[in-house]
């Protein structure tokens, strides 16, 4: 019996096939298991790419006459045009025809806005050259079509957004601007930067050779961008425009170069207009030479307001019971307070006068009488403490209001027991010198003093605007009882009577308008004395409807009037008169 067996050819074939397939399996195992991580990371590096999905910055609206939002700041799409110079080369030779064609197309569409250095930097090694920035959508479309016609390769259009200021420089300091890094600077843009900028999204996915994202693989991340909030301001664009025009005209009339105006709704604390001069164009903020112009001086500049403060001192006197509207005193041109002389500007009124006369003639001696009465008959710690309490706890001087603006100043006032001549300091404080207050602080306090005693937190944001729907937020009542309602009523009447007496009824055509002027000497920190030639003129006032409620408060400041006379009445009051007349008509205020 033979034990040998011939090996069949089929067995040989099986063996060979098996070996070949074993080789395949081994290689596959080596690639896919042993070197799995290495090849996966290489593949991901090539294929998986992330792209930030930029969030659109929130828009900013003002209010129109009917209370609906009117756009102030929008976004418009713009493009950056760049080229890949490497792809313009055929071997080592630049395709001059294509390069020149590209240059011709760009210059025809954009003129001088084409970056000459971008067209010159066409080295073979370079993969990127910037050709133009801030190209509008219609320009980009026409350039794209022309490029496609001429078959020009490798030109990219990167989209972004640019801020557009629909009303030009209107309310520039209140708005602020957005810098090249997309960050808000000054004003609302900076204060509400987090709300306005939204949150960028992220798209991470496998991409093909043309950078098209494909929804395959496990690395896909798709987080949509969350656009910024659209903010509606309390600013009325019509009032703002009128106020800016009136300010410019008023300053020109007296040869002044700087000034500010604020208009507020005393029933809600909402700011209806806020203007500073000089101003700037936020669309061209890069051209501004003096950065001081970016600041909103109404909130950031604390100054000595002067005689307008007499209205608030009088309110404190009425409310504390120290005086009544019919209280009288024997006036003189000057009084002595320690080693200082407190004198009136208006001389010769050496007779018995009442409290309304104090406001009419703006008597420094008169408000010192009120201060003395707070102390039981003399300028003492008790009286100073009463006035200090009204200025700080009631009127909220010495602390920021919290308005939605950057750089708000808290101001400063001396405590009643200040070691540096407290009696003289407070004798001056009673008529608005020796304390620093911003226009916003003063106007907000004045609103509370004349509206029945309600301190509404001053506000610039009325709400948000989303998908055509305006969500209004409620005004915030920070405090009641700033003055008792009857004290506020008395103060209103006194201010109306004072203005009527001063103007002899010329200004207001039968409407009930009250106000107080102030002319303050400017303190020179270098010489540590008050200037005898430079004054700040201020006027603050209000208009009352036939239901006896004030509908607007306007405060005007002129920093450097060169007209003769008192800056408060000569420079600031005419501007107030113009705006007040406009407001009476605009708000439909009725005569009594």
């Amino acid at each position, binding site marked *: 019996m033979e034990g040998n067996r011939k090996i069949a050819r089929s067995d040989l074939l099986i063996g060979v096939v098996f070996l070949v*397939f074993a080789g395949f399996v081994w290689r596959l195992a080596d690639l896919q298991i042993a070197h799995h991580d290495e090849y996966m990371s290489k593949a991901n590096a090539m294929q998986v790419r992330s792209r930030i999905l930029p969030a659109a910055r929130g828009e900013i609206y003002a209010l129109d006459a009917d209370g609906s939002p009117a756009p102030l700041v929008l976004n418009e799409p713009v493009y950056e045009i760049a080229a890949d110079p490497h792809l313009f080369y055929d071997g080592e030779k630049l395709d001059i025809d294509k390069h020149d064609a590209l240059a011709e197309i760009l210059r025809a569409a954009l003129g001088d806005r084409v970056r000459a250095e971008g067209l010159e930097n066409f080295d073979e090694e370079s993969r990127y050259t910037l050709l133009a920035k801030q190209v509008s959508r219609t320009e980009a479309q026409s350039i794209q079509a022309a490029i496609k016609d001429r078959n020009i390769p490798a030109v990219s259009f990167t989209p972004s957004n640019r801020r557009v200021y*629909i009303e030009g420089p209107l309310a520039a300091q209140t708005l602020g601007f957005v810098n090249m890094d997309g960050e808000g600077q000054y004003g609302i843009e900076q204060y509400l930067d987090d709300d306005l900028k939204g949150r960028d999204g992220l798209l991470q996915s496998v991409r093909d050779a043309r950078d098209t994202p494909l929804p395959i693989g496990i690395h896909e991340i798709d987080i949509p961008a969350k656009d910024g909030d659209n903010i509606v301001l309390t600013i009325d664009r019509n009032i703002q425009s009128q106020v800016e025009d009136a300010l410019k005209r008023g300053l020109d009339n007296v040869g002044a170069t700087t000034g500010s105006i604020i208009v507020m709704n005393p029933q809600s604390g909402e700011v209806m207009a806020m203007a500073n001069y000089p101003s700037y164009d936020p669309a061209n903020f890069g051209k501004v030479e003096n950065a001081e112009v970016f600041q909103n001086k109404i909130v950031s500049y604390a100054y000595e307001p002067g005689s307008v403060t007499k209205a608030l001192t009088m309110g404190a006197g009425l409310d504390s019971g120290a005086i009544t509207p019919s209280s009288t005193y024997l006036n003189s041109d000057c009084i002595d307070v320690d080693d200082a002389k407190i004198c009136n500007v208006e001389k010769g009124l050496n007779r018995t006068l009442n409290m309304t006369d104090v406001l009419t003639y703006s008597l420094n001696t008169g408000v010192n009488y009120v201060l003395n009465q707070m102390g039981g008959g003399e300028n003492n710690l008790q009286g100073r403490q009463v006035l200090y309490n009204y200025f700080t706890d009631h009127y909220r001087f010495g602390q920021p209001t919290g308005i939605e603006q950057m750089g708000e100043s808290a101001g400063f006032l001396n405590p009643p027991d200040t070691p540096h001549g407290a009696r003289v300091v407070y004798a001056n404080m009673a008529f608005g010198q020796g304390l620093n207050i911003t226009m916003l602080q003063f106007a907000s306090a004045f609103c509370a003093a004349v509206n029945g005693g309600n301190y509404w937190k001053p506000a610039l944001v009325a709400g948000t605007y989303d998908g055509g729907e305006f969500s209004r937020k409620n005004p915030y009542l920070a405090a009641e009882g700033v003055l008792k309602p009857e004290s506020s009523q008395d103060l209103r009447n006194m201010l109306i009577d004072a203005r009527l007496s001063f103007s002899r009824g010329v200004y207001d055509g039968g409407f009930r308008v009250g106000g107080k002027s102030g002319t303050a000497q400017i303190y020179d920190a270098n010489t540590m004395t008050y200037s005898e030639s430079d004054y700040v003129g201020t006027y603050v006032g209000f208009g009352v409807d036939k239901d006896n409620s004030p509908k607007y408060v306007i405060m005007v400041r002129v920093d450097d009037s060169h007209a003769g006379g008192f800056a408060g009445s000569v420079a600031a009051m005419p501007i107030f008169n113009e705006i007040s007349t406009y407001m009476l008509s605009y708000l439909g205020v009725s*005569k009594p």
Partner: protein
Amino acid sequence: MTYKNTVYQSSRISARAGLRQNFAMNQNTIAYARDGKIGPVATFVVIGLLVVGMLMIYLMQLSSTGSYGYKLNDINVRQSELVAEQQDLEVDNARMQSLAAVKNSTVAASMTAPASTDSVN
């Protein structure tokens, strides 16, 4: 000479011969059974083809997902273009209703200031 012990499974009718066969006793009837098994090479090839077939199906699925990606991308690009166009139109619309546009309009130009004004309560 060797003999193999082979068990034949027979069928009663030989399809090839067309003859009826008699499986009675003492009849020397032989029928060749067909083996139902396939060879190892063929098995290997069939399995390989099945695996390749499944891979092809997987690749087809992947490709069709990828093709959705292109459609999605086209739609996203179109959406971005429309959003940009909408932004432009909003800006144009806002500019036309701006205070400056209203002031410089023909309607405003044809308005005159009243000679005198008064108010009615």
